[in-house]
């Protein structure tokens, strides 16, 4: 009995796939030192940042694109991408929401991010990044009162150069990997967050990314610093219009948690996944890393990955401080011809450091799903503890689910546990629901929801609702 029809699952449409008709200021395709100088000049950046970009570019030229991930895609022509695209500024750019191009705001409303409403009601401060530039940041006054800095990184470079210079690239150095080097050379915007000592950020911070213009790549850079005893919860969401060509998204996210600080980073990634034949879609090649520098610091990554043609993403924690805690909760869904190679790295350096990894992969249609993780316990990380659970659920007989966990232990007092299972939805579970009058499709939704529950529970409320909706939409028609 095969009750699941992957063809149907593959057919459901991408709801964020519209294009906004906005005049934009775009550089011609191609990458060379001139382009980087141009971006830097456009952003009115100081010399040190330009030098930093150029050194990243020179490293990048010497590096080769990595191909160890369990994904397949045609070669990327880095000279065919435009590295800068900004909605055309009216005068000096918006100072508040009132000055933002109404068409942009309309876009965000279509995406279900009512910036204005959120400013009034939801109590979530939003920084929206459109193509490569940050277009609006809400709630700045209230945050400023608490001493929290939340602004586009390009602005932070101008306003808080010392902070940015101190932390930028300290977690993901320019020569870290091919895509990180590329990002360091050409990043155009992103968010900067600094939470001062002992401050609990009064609201959730949120960024929405959208790629709008065609032939562009998006290279945003996010830097979050939680000073001693600080707490911040940060949410990130992404969409892109439907296009036939593949677009590159190579972001870098750096988190720094000092003594007793806690950062909670949540992502709902819904980039355009391409169509059912695998045409178009975003290549999501992202480097995310957290440095738990301080004692008792904590970083928690939560991600819901439903979009992108190809995902290549490993949010990691370097647990440097004693008693530091790292967490990774992930739900990844691949359908149609999507491919995802995602997981995490937990590097235990400090004593009594703890990490938890819960990864739930769902593959439908012809989707290929891989969990790739590293747990490394260094010598001297006494009493370190890791627990990893990665489960895969298969819907359809043409999809694939793979697990590649690396475990490296050099410390005898450490305890590391890894468990993984792969199966399809149990026929007995389905039968149980059906026998109680629950239609098949609802039953599948219910079971999938239960499968993901450990992860959804970790999401902030606003995102949990969105994630649930995304999963439901994605599974629509999955059952015949």
């Amino acid at each position, binding site marked *: 009995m095969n009750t*699941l029809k992957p063809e149907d699952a593959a057919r459901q449409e991408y709801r964020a796939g519209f294009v906004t008709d906005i005049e934009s200021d775009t550089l011609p395709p191609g990458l060379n030192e001139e382009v980087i100088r141009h971006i830097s000049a456009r952003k009115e950046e100081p010399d040190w940042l330009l030098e930093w970009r150029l050194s990243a570019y020179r490293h990048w030229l010497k590096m080769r694109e990595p191909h*160890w991930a369990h994904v397949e895609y045609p070669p990327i022509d880095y000279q065919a991408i435009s590295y800068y695209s900004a909605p055309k500024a009216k005068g000096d750019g918006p100072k508040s929401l009132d000055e933002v191009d109404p068409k942009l705001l309309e876009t965000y409303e279509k995406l279900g991010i009512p910036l204005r409403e959120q400013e009034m009601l939801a109590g979530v401060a939003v920084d929206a990044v459109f193509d490569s530039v940050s277009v609006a940041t809400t709630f700045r006054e209230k945050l400023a009162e608490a001493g929290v800095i939340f602004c586009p990184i390009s602005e932070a470079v101008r306003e808080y150069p010392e902070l940015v210079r101190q932390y930028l690239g300290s977690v993901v150095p320019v020569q870290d990997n091919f895509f990180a080097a590329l990002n360091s050379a050409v990043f155009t915007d992103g968010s900067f967050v600094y939470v001062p000592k002992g401050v609990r950020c009064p609201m959730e911070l949120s960024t929405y990314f959208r790629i709008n213009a065609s032939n562009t790549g998006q290279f945003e850079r996010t830097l979050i610093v939680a000073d001693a005893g600080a707490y911040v919860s940060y949410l990130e969401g992404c969409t892109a219009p439907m296009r036939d060509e593949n677009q590159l998204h190579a972001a870098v996210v750096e988190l720094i948690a000092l003594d007793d600080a806690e950062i909670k980073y949540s992502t709902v990634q819904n980039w355009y996944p391409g169509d059912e034949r695998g045409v178009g879609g975003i290549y999501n090649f992202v480097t995310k890393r957290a440095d738990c520098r301080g004692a008792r610091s904590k970083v928690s990554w939560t991600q819901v990955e439903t979009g992108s043609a190809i995902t290549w993403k490993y949010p990691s924690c370097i647990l440097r401080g004693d008693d530091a805690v790292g967490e990774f909760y992930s739900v990844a869904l691949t359908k149609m011809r999507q491919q995802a190679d995602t997981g995490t790295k937990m590097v235990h350096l400090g004593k009594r450091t703890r990490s938890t990894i819960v990864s739930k992969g769902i593959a439908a249609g012809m989707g290929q799903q891989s969990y790739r993780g590293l747990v490394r*316990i260094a*010598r001297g990380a006494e009493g370190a503890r890791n627990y990893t659970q990665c489960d*895969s659920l*298969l*819907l*359809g*007989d*043409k*999809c*694939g*689910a*793979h*697990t*590649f*966990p*690396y*475990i*490296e*232990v*050099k*410390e*005898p*007092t*450490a*305890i*590391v*546990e*890894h*468990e*993984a*299972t*792969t*199966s*399809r939805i149990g026929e007995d579970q389905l039968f149980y629901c059906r026998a109680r009058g629950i239609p098949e499709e609802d039953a599948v939704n219910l079971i999938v929801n239960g499968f993901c529950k450990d992860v959804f529970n970790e999401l902030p409320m606003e995102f949990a609702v969105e994630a649930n909706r995304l999963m439901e939409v994605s599974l629509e028609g999955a059952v015949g």
Partner: protein
Amino acid sequence: MSAIDRLRAQAEAVFARHGVPAPRLEHWKYTDIRRVVAPFIDHASPAASAEQGGVPNPLRDLDAYRVTFVDGRLVDGDTLPDGVRVRSLAAVLAEARGEEASRLLAVDERAPLFNGLVALNAARACDGLVIDVADGVCVQKPLYVLHWGAVGAAHPRHWIRLGRHAELTLIEHYLSDQEQAGLTNGVTRLELGAGAHARHVRLQQEARRRVHIGRLEARQARASSLVSHSIALGGAWSRVDIACTLADEAARCRLDGLYLLAGRQHADHHTEIEHGAPFGVSREMYRGVLDGRARAVFNGRIVVREGAVKTDSAQRNANLLLSDRAEVDTKPELEIYNDDVQCAHGATVGQLDAQQLFYLRARGLSEEQARQLLTFAFADEVLAGIKPPEVRRYVERAAFGKLPQAGDIASMLQQAGGAA
């Protein structure tokens, strides 16, 4: 140029292309043997060494057919019963027609876990066993193959084919001269006919300066079953690759292993089970105990192909670190291209359970005794499946010998055994 010379030259060319595997290869990430293997690459095993001087005779109480190899050459062998055709590779190659020679010496670069050393074996192997067990023949006594490494490099190459419903237990025991450095680079191929049943025990107790490279390749037909035990106790460096292909319906395999290391020993196990057909069952359990500055690597890969529905697969790897200088790198991998499967794997690294220690301490055992007993019990879970029992007892004793202060616990177990 004869057919055999041509095959040898081809294998040599493949080796030249791949070379000794380097850590930039994913499957050799943690094991760099280039330096230790180099002196033996062009070391032809001396024909004259093929004498039995100094060859030990362990496992005397085992009732088995015995075959002895010295430095990769067959020196002595019992006659096997009717229905079992045993020839030496050297003899087969001396008279072989092209077809059989190419079956025995061909190098398949697409084979799972292939690396340059597999080609090196095909190029340099001077001897081995070529065994055919006829349909329906059940070989009652195990076949015990002793490999003695006296000096230099040995490249034994065995080819064993079991007919339909045939049964065979094969024990490969590797020992070598304590005073000599050397290299063993062995390849064993097993072909199991429909309904055939094979047991394979690889007991690696090489000398402390020796490098051991081993490979077991099994191809299983319908409803055949394989039970493999790979025990790594000796050698400075050891690397064992086990690749098992469940090529037809309802085949099953069980791969178990134990690595018990001390000093600066390095042992690496890579296994790959390919489920290529429906209703396959695989079970895998590897355990490791690491003391001193030892380092162990385990990589277990399970691949379930598109058509292999109703696959049932479970894999476990557990490691015990006894010293703060020891290291373990483990990677249980799953690659699944089909939704109608039950697959699970797990890996753990840790220390002895405090509650279990307390339990034994409360019963009057010293801290050290309790530790030894629990460590032994941990390792013995793998050994319990080894048959025949004489081999299991031998391996238990050998494993014991490697635990620090094993004397106490050995006598304690003997008392317990005597009482029971």
